[in-house]
Every structure is written in structure tokens, then in C-alpha cells.
């Protein structure tokens, strides 16, 4: 779903309201909140020990299904594990899946996009066809078949999610490259007797690929949501690893007896995805602002 937002990258920019100055884009309540959420999540991902002292995998059947309390902020799950601790530790896995999947998708897209955007007519033809075919295969089918081939697991679902996002990215990268390739400043560089290689390297690539960072930011949140759907279909990460999608789908079973099992991981997913979107859009607005001059 990233393409939706990112697709706008290649469109002519309008005035981005309320965003002024070099760091002005940061001075926006939404962006501030998003950054705070992401900082929290990043801390959880990199140093979960800072936020909790408990062991995320320590089972205690006797303490199963305790509702949120001072001892267990988010309650305990069916095996008596502390949900708060698992949400904290889950950040790492979820973030890893999100970023790795996006990296895979962008990487593949980069190859296809470069082939299409800078390659010969043949290269463009080939890459366009590949992208069309990937588009025509519904993302989940692609993921299902891939998971069926490679067997479920973190790596597989990461790659599967990445695969299904690649065609969207590839299209954006291609059109971006194409528009930059025809930009007058590229012609101006030709007139200055720069070589083709230098022009590509110094002008086309940096200009065209700057949105990749933005795309990535927008994509991570969506990849996390996507991966959680695979978890629901029983194709996610291997237990006992704490991962929000897997926690959410296993907690769904107990939704009538323990609401907290779904609410907290669910909120974590939504907050992360939304924060990445906010940040990505702000970056996007800024990039466009800069691209205008």
C-alpha cells in the first residue's frame, strides 16, 4: 500500500503546508508524536533490557491470562508470559521484518527500476514486463507460493513480503529515473561536456533515488502490517519468538477471555505503522520541497 503514498512522489509538487526551513518539517505536532513513538520502538528494538527486566519467553502456566496490573502492565498471555515484555521484545522482530522486507523489496525494485529507467529499450521492455507480471499476481498469492516453496519462517515471510512490495517500488523508481533523465538539468550537464557515466552518477541517480529513503520509511509500517497477516494465516515467525503479528493472531483466539492479548500488540502495530507513515509523508513533503529548488 506504500505505492499509494509514494506514487505521489513522482508527481509535481504542490506547496507543502506548514513546512518551512531546513528542519521546519520537524516542527509539526504529528511528526513530533511519530518521532517519539519511533524512538520508543527503536529503543525497545535495540535495547529491550532498558525497558523491561523480565524474560519474554519465560512461561508460567499458573499465571496465565492475568489481566493488566501493576505487576504485568499489559497482563499475561495463555502461557503466563508477560505481554508487556513480549511487546517490548517483539519490537525488534517486527521492526526487523519491516525493514528487511522493505529492503528486499526496494533492492529488487532498484534492479528492475534501474533496468527500466536507464537501460536500453530492451532492458526497459523486459523490466516493465516483469513488473507487470509481479503486479498481476496478487501479493498474498506470491507470498503464499513463496512460503510454500521455502517453508515458513522469519526469513521467508520477510522475503515474501518484500517480493510482493517490489513491483510498486520498481514502477516508482523507473518513472522517477525517466523524469530525471529527461530533466533539463541533465541536458545542461551534457552541454557542459560531462560524460554519460558522470551524468548518471552525479545527477540522475542522486536526483532519482532520493525518494527511496522516503519510500522505505513509508514501506516499513506497511510491511509490518502485511507480515502480521501472514502470521494470521499461520505462516509467520517460529514460536516462541515474540513478534507483534504472531502475538496478535494467537491472542485473537482468546479475544473473549483476554482482550489485552490483542489490544496491546495491535496498538503497537498500528502505532508503528502510522508513525512510519507520518514520518514518511513529512520526509516526502520535504524532499519534494527541496526538489523544487
Amino acid at each position, binding site marked *: *500500500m506504500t505505492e499509494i*503514498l509514494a506514487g505521489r512522489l513522482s508527481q509535481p509538487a504542490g506547496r507543502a503546508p506548514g513546512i518551512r526551513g531546513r528542519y521546519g518539517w520537524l516542527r509539526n505536532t504529528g511528526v513530533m508524536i511519530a518521532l517519539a513513538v519511533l524512538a520508543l520502538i527503536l529503543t525497545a528494538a535495540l535495547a529491550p533490557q532498558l525497558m523491561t527486566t523480565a524474560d519474554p519467553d519465560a512461561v508460567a502456566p499458573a499465571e496465565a491470562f492475568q489481566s493488566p496490573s501493576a505487576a504485568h502492565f499489559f497482563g499475561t498471555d495463555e502461557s503466563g508470559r508477560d505481554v508487556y515484555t513480549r511487546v517490548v521484545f517483539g519490537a525488534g522482530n517486527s521492526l526487523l521484518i519491516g525493514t528487511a522486507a522493505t529492503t528486499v523489496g526496494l533492492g529488487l525494485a532498484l534492479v528492475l527500476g534501474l533496468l527500466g529507467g536507464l537501460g536500453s529499450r530492451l532492458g526497459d521492455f523486459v523490466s516493465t514486463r516483469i513488473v507487470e507480471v509481479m503486479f498481476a*499476481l496478487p501479493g498474498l498469492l506470491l507470498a503464499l507460493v513463496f512460503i510454500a516453496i521455502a517453508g515458513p519462517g522469519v526469513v521467508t515471510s520477510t522475503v515474501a513480503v518484500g517480493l510482493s512490495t517490489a513491483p510498486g517500488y520498481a514502477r516508482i523508481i523507473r518513472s522517477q529515473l525517466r523524469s530525471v533523465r529527461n530533466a533539463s538539468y541533465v541536458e545542461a550537464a551534457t552541454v557542459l561536456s560531462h560524460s554519460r557515466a558522470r551524468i548518471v552518477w552525479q545527477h540522475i541517480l542522486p536526483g532519482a533515488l532520493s525518494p527511496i529513503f522516503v519510500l522505505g520509511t513509508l514501506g516499513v509500517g506497511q510491511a509490518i502490517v502485511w507480515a502480521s497477516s501472514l502470521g*494470521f494465516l499461520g505462516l509467520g515467525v517460529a514460536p516462541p519468538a515474540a513478534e507483534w503479528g504472531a502475538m496478535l493472531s494467537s491472542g485473537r483466539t482468546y479475544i473473549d477471555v483476554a482482550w489485552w492479548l490483542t489490544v496491546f500488540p495491535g496498538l503497537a502495530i498500528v502505532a508503528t505503522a502510522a508513525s512510519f*507513515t507520518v514520518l514518511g509523508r513529512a520526509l516526502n513533503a520535504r524532499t519534494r520541497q527541496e526538489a523544487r529548488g
Partner: protein
Amino acid sequence: MTVSTDAPAVASVSTPATRLRSLGWVARRVGGGAFVLWAVATVIFFALRLIPGDPVDAILGGPGSQASAEAVAQIRADYGLDQPLIVQYFLAMGKLAVADFGTSYALKVAVAPYVLTQLWSTLVLTLASLVVAWLGALGLTLATSGRGRVSRAVGSGLELLAAAVPHFWLASLLIILLSNTLHWLPPISVPGPLGLVLPVLTLALPLTGFLGQVMRESLANAYEQPFVLSARARGESEWGVRLRHVLRHAALPGISLSGWAFGSLLSGAVVVETIFARPGLGRTLLSAVTIRDIPVVTAVALLSALTFIIVTVATDVVDRIVDPRVTEVASR
């Protein structure tokens, strides 16, 4: 700055040349579509052979069957599974070329009619969701795009959240709220429009969020265009500006994204159909992949690719109708 001539601009009347061009366009789309279908069939054919698990199991009543040696041999011969892979491939492509999708391994029925009935159910679901998402996004943006900061923030906040909710969680929440607590709607798909409400909501809400985000942005851009000022200078009312001018511009990116959105709905349908026990392509696909029912997987893949192609072409056409500039750009 000079941009104008009085040279007659090209008239958008239908001349033989333009008609020829649209014919060429149609031909290109059809050719491209055929290629995509062939490629999808090929990819699926080989990918499914890479999957561990013997298709014979699916034919013999699912994996884990304890069929006799004769039965296994018999099936292999019957289904041509004893041929070299490349022979199987050409046989399969030959059959697909004449729209022969074969017999389902697990269901023992002809695949084509079976999958077509499933397609219908999924189409109803996804198209209804697309429409609802569209209306929702339009309504939300229009209602909250006014001057009020608060309503704008609420609107974009809702969109942001909606877009970030996993389908299956949303489904649970909706069931608990609308079915278990309020008793308004059945939690499973029942015949009639009532049974469609929850599945469609589940599928449409996240998409509403996305389309809403896109539309809000393009709406904001459209508001800054000089033609809006010019409309206001003509005495157009605020709603007049909104409905007659800005709305179309806001809708454009949404329209061109609808093809993609439809693709994502097909994916979401797998989850929604499973949860709400609705028949459909998504569930068919999920179970077919699980038991390696190759003819069904192939047919579903091709069918959804075909639908996707058709929907993409349709959105292109709508795009061209709403925005005549597309034609000009495309023909350049």
C-alpha cells in the same frame, strides 16, 4: 515568458487517426494482457513444482493418504505426472491456451466452472469494498477538508489509523462490536446484503484510510491551484468549488491507484473470506496452496491476474475520461 500561439490547437474530435490510435491502444493492452497471463501461468507452473509435497497426495485425498502403490501409479499416469517436466509444461500450456483448466486434484470437479463461481463471490466482495472505500474516502475528505484545523486533524488521524490496521484484527474488533455486543450484524457471511456488511467493512476500512490520505493530499494541492481562485472570483460558493472543481482533481490519483488497490483487496480477501466464512477465490487459493491442488492454484492465479488486468484497463479508461490530459501524455 511565452507559451502561446494562435495556431489552432488540436481538436479532440474523433478522426480516423484518433480512432486508429485507440484501436492500437486496445491492441497493445490485449497483447500485453495475454503476455502477462502466459507469464503468470509459467511462473506458477514451475513454482508449484518447486514446492515440496507430491501432487499425487492431493489427488489421493489429501496429504497423509495411505494409498496403495497401484493407486499412486494409476494417478501418475492419469494426470501425466510421470512425464518429464518440460513435456508437462507444454501439455499444460496447450490446455490453458484453449481455456482448459483441467480437473481439481482435491475436488475432482472441472476447475473452470468451480473457480468461476468462487470468482463471482470474491468480485462482489472486492468491488463492493472498492466502492465503499471510495465513497468513504471521498466523504471523509470532503467532510473534513474544510477550514477547521480540528476536523482536518481528526480526519487525517482516522485515515492514518484505518490504514495501519491489519485486516484480521479489524475483523475481530468489528465482530465483537457490531455482532457480539450490538447484535446488529451476523458474524458470518449469510445470504443477502446483511451478510456482506462486515466483510466489506473489514476490507474497505484500511483502503479508505489509504485513499483518504492520497485524496486529502491532492485535495490540498488542488485548492492551491489558480483555477480555484479563478472559480471563487467568479462567485462560486465553497461547496461549488469543492464539488465542481477540486473534487475531480482530488480523485485523480485515487482513480489511477484503484487498479493497484483492487490487487491489494484480492490479497485481503484471503483473510476476510476465511474469517467470515465466505466462499471465494481467496479461501480457494489458500486451501489449494495448502494441499498443492495445482490446477486450482493455476486457475485462481490466472483468473485474478486477468481480473487485475481488466480492472487496470478499466481504471485507465476512467482516468482518461476524467482527465483528458492523460491521453495527450500517453500518446506522446
